[in-house]
C-alpha cells in the first residue's frame, strides 16, 4: 500500500476535523436555546414599590414569613415595612416593630407619642432584597454558595453555605440575616419558587393596595418595566454602585 506524505497529512487533518465536530453542531438551535447556552435570558426580575400606596398593614411581611418558613416569632424577616414620621423640628422617627409583621395600629414610636400637630410628613416604606445587578454579597462569598441566576435573582445554596456571615456584612441594605434554625445566610429570593411557576411573590399577592409589584424588565410590554422606564423612580443607596433592582415611586431623601 502506498501513501504519500501529502496524503497522510491531508487525511489526518480531515479525520481530525470530522472527529472534532460534535454531533450537537449539526443540530439547529432555536434562538431561545442559543440564549440559554450563552447565559442570556429573556427575563430580568425587578420589583416596584409605591410608597404612597402603603398603609402599613404588614400583610406582606406575614405572608413572606409563612411562605418561606422564616421563624415567625423571631425578629428576622426577608421583607419588612419601616415607618417614617418627620416632625417640624427636622427629626425623623423611624421604627419597624417585628419588621411590621403585625401592622401599625398605634401611633407610638419607640414608646413615645408624637404630637400630630408637629408631624410634617409620615409614610411607610416596604423594603426587601434589591437583587442588585452587581451584588456585593455574592462577590464576597468564599465558597460559591450565593450567586445570581440568569433571571437576576440572588439566591443562597443552603447545602453549600458555611454560615461565615461575610455576605450579611457586605450587603449595604441589611437585607440578609442569619437563619436562626438552619444556620445559613438567609435572604429574599423574590419567591423564586413562585415566580418561576408564573405566580406572584407572596408579598405582592398579599398586598391589597398594589403597593408592591414584580415584573420583567426585559419585557417592554410589562406594566412594571413600562413604569420604570417612563416614570420617575428612585433606588436606595445608589452610591454603593451595586445597581439595585428594586425601584421606588415617591421615595424621600430621608429613606436610607
Amino acid at each position, binding site marked *: 500500500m502506498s501513501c504519500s506524505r501529502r496524503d497522510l497529512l491531508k487525511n489526518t487533518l480531515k479525520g481530525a476535523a470530522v472527529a472534532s465536530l460534535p454531533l450537537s453542531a449539526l443540530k439547529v438551535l432555536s434562538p431561545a436555546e442559543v440564549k440559554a447556552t450563552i447565559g442570556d435570558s429573556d427575563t430580568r426580575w425587578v420589583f416596584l414599590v409605591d410608597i404612597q400606596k402603603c398603609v*402599613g398593614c404588614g400583610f406582606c411581611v406575614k405572608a413572606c414569613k409563612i411562605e418561606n418558613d422564616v421563624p415567625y416569632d423571631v425578629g428576622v424577616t426577608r421583607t419588612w415595612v419601616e415607618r417614617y414620621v418627620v416632625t417640624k423640628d427636622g427629626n425623623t422617627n423611624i421604627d419597624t416593630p417585628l419588621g411590621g409583621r403585625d401592622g401599625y395600629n398605634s401611633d407610638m414610636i419607640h414608646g413615645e407619642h408624637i404630637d400630630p400637630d408637629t408631624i410634617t410628613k409620615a409614610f411607610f416604606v416596604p423594603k426587601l432584597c434589591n437583587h442588585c445587578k452587581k451584588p456585593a454579597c455574592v462577590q464576597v462569598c468564599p465558597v460559591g454558595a450565593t450567586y445570581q441566576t440568569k433571571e437576576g435573582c440572588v439566591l443562597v445554596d443552603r447545602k453549600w453555605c458555611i454560615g461565615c456571615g461575610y455576605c450579611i456584612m457586605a450587603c449595604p441594605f441589611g437585607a440578609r440575616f442569619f437563619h436562626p434554625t438552619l444556620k445559613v445566610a438567609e435572604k429574599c429570593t423574590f419567591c423564586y419558587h413562585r415566580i418561576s411557576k408564573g405566580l406572584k411573590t407572596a408579598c405582592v399577592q398579599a398586598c391589597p393596595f398594589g403597593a408592591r409589584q414584580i415584573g420583567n424588565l426585559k419585557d417592554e410590554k410589562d406594566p412594571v418595566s413600562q413604569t420604570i422606564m417612563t416614570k420617575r423612580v428612585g433606588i436606595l443607596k445608589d452610591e454603593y454602585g451595586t445597581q439595585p433592582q428594586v425601584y421606588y415611586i415617591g421615595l424621600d431623601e430621608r429613606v436610607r
Partner: protein
Amino acid sequence: MKSHVFRPIVVVIIAFVLLVVARQLMVPKDFGVHGESFTFGYHRLSNIDEWKNYKTKYRGKEYCRECHEEKVEENLASPHNVLECENCHGPAVDHPEDPETLPIETSRLLCQRCHAFLPYPQSNRALMPAIEPESHNPGMNCVECHNPHHPNLEDM
C-alpha cells in the same frame, strides 16, 4: 539526592495528590460558572431546581372560589374585595386535605392593621375608614357587628 531533600518532596507530592483527589470527590459535578461571570455565577447548578421545588403555600382567591364560591362572590362585591382571603385565614397550602380547615381569627388587632386611626394625612393610610380602637366599642370583637367579608355600614 540526599533523603532530607527527597522526603519532604514526597510528602508535598502526596499531599497535593490527596488534595486533588479529595477535591474531585467533594465538589459536585455541576459546580461551575453558570451565569454571566465567575464573580456572580459561580455555583452549584442543581441548587436552582432545589429552589424552584420549594413548597408553595399561598394559593390565592381564585382557588378558594372552587369550594367557597358564595363567600368569594360576597367578598368581591364588597369594599373588602381587595383583600386576599389568606391574609386573614392563613395560607391554604393543601387545604382541604392538609389542613382540613383553616383558622378563623376574630381578634380586634386583625382589623386594626388597616382601620386603627393614625395621624398621617400624607400617606394613603389617611384614605382608610378609621376608628379609634380605645373608644370604638372596646372589649368587643369587630366581627360581632361587622361582616368581615362584606363590611357595609348601610346595612347596619
